[in-house]
C-alpha cells in the first residue's frame, strides 16, 4: 500500500455517526421544590420563604439564595405579576417561520426575589415591559412548571 503524506480527497476520510445518550433522565426537585410542584398540581402558585432573613423567592430551593440558610416554608401569593423582560420567537431553531409567534417572558412578583420564565399569551404588538399578568393553569396537571399553560395580561 502506498500513501501520500496526507489525505486530501474528501472521499478517503471516514466519518461516523455517534451519540451520547441514555433513554431518559429523571430529575427530582428537592424537598421544597417537590412541595412547590405539588402546589402547582393543585393550581396554586406559591413562593419559598426564608425564616432567617425573610426573603421570599422563586424558584424555590432548600437554601435561601440571599443568606444561604435552610428554607422549609412555602407561602401563597396571588399569582399576579409583571413582565420584567420578554422576547417573541418568530423563527424556530430549524429556521422555519412560526405560524404563530410565541412570547416568552421573565415574570416577576412584587416583593419576591427571582421570578419565573414562562409563556405569555397576548398580541406580540401589545406586549410591553411592566405589563401585569397572571397564570392560567392547564386542566390536566402533573406537578410541573408546565402545569401553568401560560400567563395572560390582566385587563
Amino acid at each position, binding site marked *: 500500500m502506498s500513501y501520500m503524506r496526507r489525505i486530501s480527497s474528501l472521499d478517503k476520510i471516514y466519518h*461516523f455517526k455517534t451519540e451520547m445518550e441514555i*433513554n431518559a*433522565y*429523571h430529575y*427530582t426537585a428537592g424537598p421544597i421544590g417537590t412541595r412547590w410542584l405539588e402546589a402547582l398540581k393543585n393550581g396554586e402558585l406559591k413562593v419559598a420563604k426564608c425564616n432567617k432573613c425573610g426573603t421570599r423567592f422563586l424558584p424555590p*430551593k*432548600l437554601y435561601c439564595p440571599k443568606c444561604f440558610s435552610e428554607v422549609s416554608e412555602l407561602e401563597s401569593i396571588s399569582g399576579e405579576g409583571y413582565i420584567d423582560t420578554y422576547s417573541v420567537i418568530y423563527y424556530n431553531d430549524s429556521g422555519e417561520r412560526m405560524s404563530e409567534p410565541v412570547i416568552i417572558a421573565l415574570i416577576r412578583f412584587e416583593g419576591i426575589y427571582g421570578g419565573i420564565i414562562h409563556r405569555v399569551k397576548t398580541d406580540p404588538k401589545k406586549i410591553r415591559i411592566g405589563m401585569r399578568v397572571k397564570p392560567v393553569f392547564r386542566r390536566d396537571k402533573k406537578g410541573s412548571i408546565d402545569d401553568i399553560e401560560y400567563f395572560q395580561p390582566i385587563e
Partner: protein
Amino acid sequence: MKTNIHVKNRVAIIGAGLTLFRRRLLETPQEMTWIASKKALEQAGMDFKDIDCVISGSAPDTFDGVHMKGEYYSEGAGGFGKLHFRVFVGGGTGVFVPIAGWWMVASGLCKKALIVAEEKMSSAADPHPQAVFRHIWDPLIEKMLGPNLIWIFALEMHRYMHKCGVSKEDIALVSVKNKANALDHPCAQAAAKISVEDVLKSEVLVYPVNRLDISPVSDGAAALVMVSEDVARRYTDNPIWVAGIGFNLDSYSWTNRELAYPLYLKKAADMAYKMAGIENPMKQIDVAEPYDPFDYKELHHMEGLGLAPRCKAAELTKEGVTQRDGDLPINPSGGLLGVGNPIAAAGLMKVAEIFWQLRGEAGRRQVKKPVYTGLAQAWGDLMQVGTVIILRR
C-alpha cells in the same frame, strides 16, 4: 514542578462536610452542594458570605443530565458573583479539586476558598447510571465493540492478578475490610459485615469481577474549607496543612501499555512526595485513603503510591497491616466500597477523612496509632489518571 521551598504561602484546611451517600437523594445537585458546603463552613466557623472563591469538581455531565453542570450546581456553594471554576479529571476529580484549590490559595488569589464536589448519578435513571459509561470510550474504535465499564477494570484486575500472583481471595479481603470500616461512618451507603466467601459467592459480572468487588452507584456531595495561613490562624488552633500535591495523566491509548502497574500514579505520588519532602512513604505516611472503586484498586494503588512494594500489597493486607489498628491503616473511612461512590464526591470524602483523622476527629473510625501525615488519592479516566494530596498536622 519545583519543591515547596519556592512556595511562599502555606495552605490549610479548616473544615469538612459531607452529605449522606445514598443510591438516591431527593435533593437537587444544587441542594446537595449546599448541604456539604454548609456543613464544611459550620465546622470552620464560617458562613457563605466569608468565602471569596469556589473551586468545584464533578464527573461526567451524563450522570446529572445537565450540560455544563458546573454552571448549574455552583449556585449551591454560593458561587454566584464569586470566582468559580470546575475541574474534571474523571474519577480522579475528587482529589483534584483541593489540588486546584491549593494553588488558588497558595498564589494569594484566594484567601478563603470553598472546595466542593458533587455527583448525582441517580438522575441517569433510564435504563441505569452504568449505561452512561458506554460513552467514555474512543467512539470510533472501542465503542463500536459494545464494551461495558466493567470490562476495562476486569482486564486490568486480571492482568494484575496474573503478573503479581494475587488471588481473588486476597483481593476480596479489601472489600471485607472496607465495608466493615464503613459501619462506623455516618454517611455510609454500603457498610456491611461480610466475609471473603460472600464476595466470592456474589454474582460474577465480568470474570474476575464479582458484584461485591465493586462500589455502588451513589448520590452525594463533599466540601472542604481551604484557607491561607493567616486566615487559618484566626479561625482555628488545629489547622491541617496541605504538604504536597501531585497529578499525572498517561496516554489515552490504554491498550498500548502495561496495566499491572500504575506508572502515572507513581509519577503523581513522586511529585507530591517531593513537595512534601517525603523520601520513604512507607515510613513517613501514617494513614492513607487510596482510591478503591474496586477492591483490587486499593492494592494496585498502594503499590503505585509506594506504600507497598510491587506485588506485595495483598500480603500486607493479609497480615492486617492495613486495618485501622494496623501499622499502616488504609481506607479507615470505609472507602468507596463501604461509604459509597458518588464519583467526585467520593474522592473528596477521602480528603475529608484524612483531615478528620489528622485532627483526631474521626470518632469511632479514628485509627489507633498517632497520625501526623496522611495521604488521599484518586484515579480515573481510561485507567490513566492519578491525583494525590498529602496533608499534615
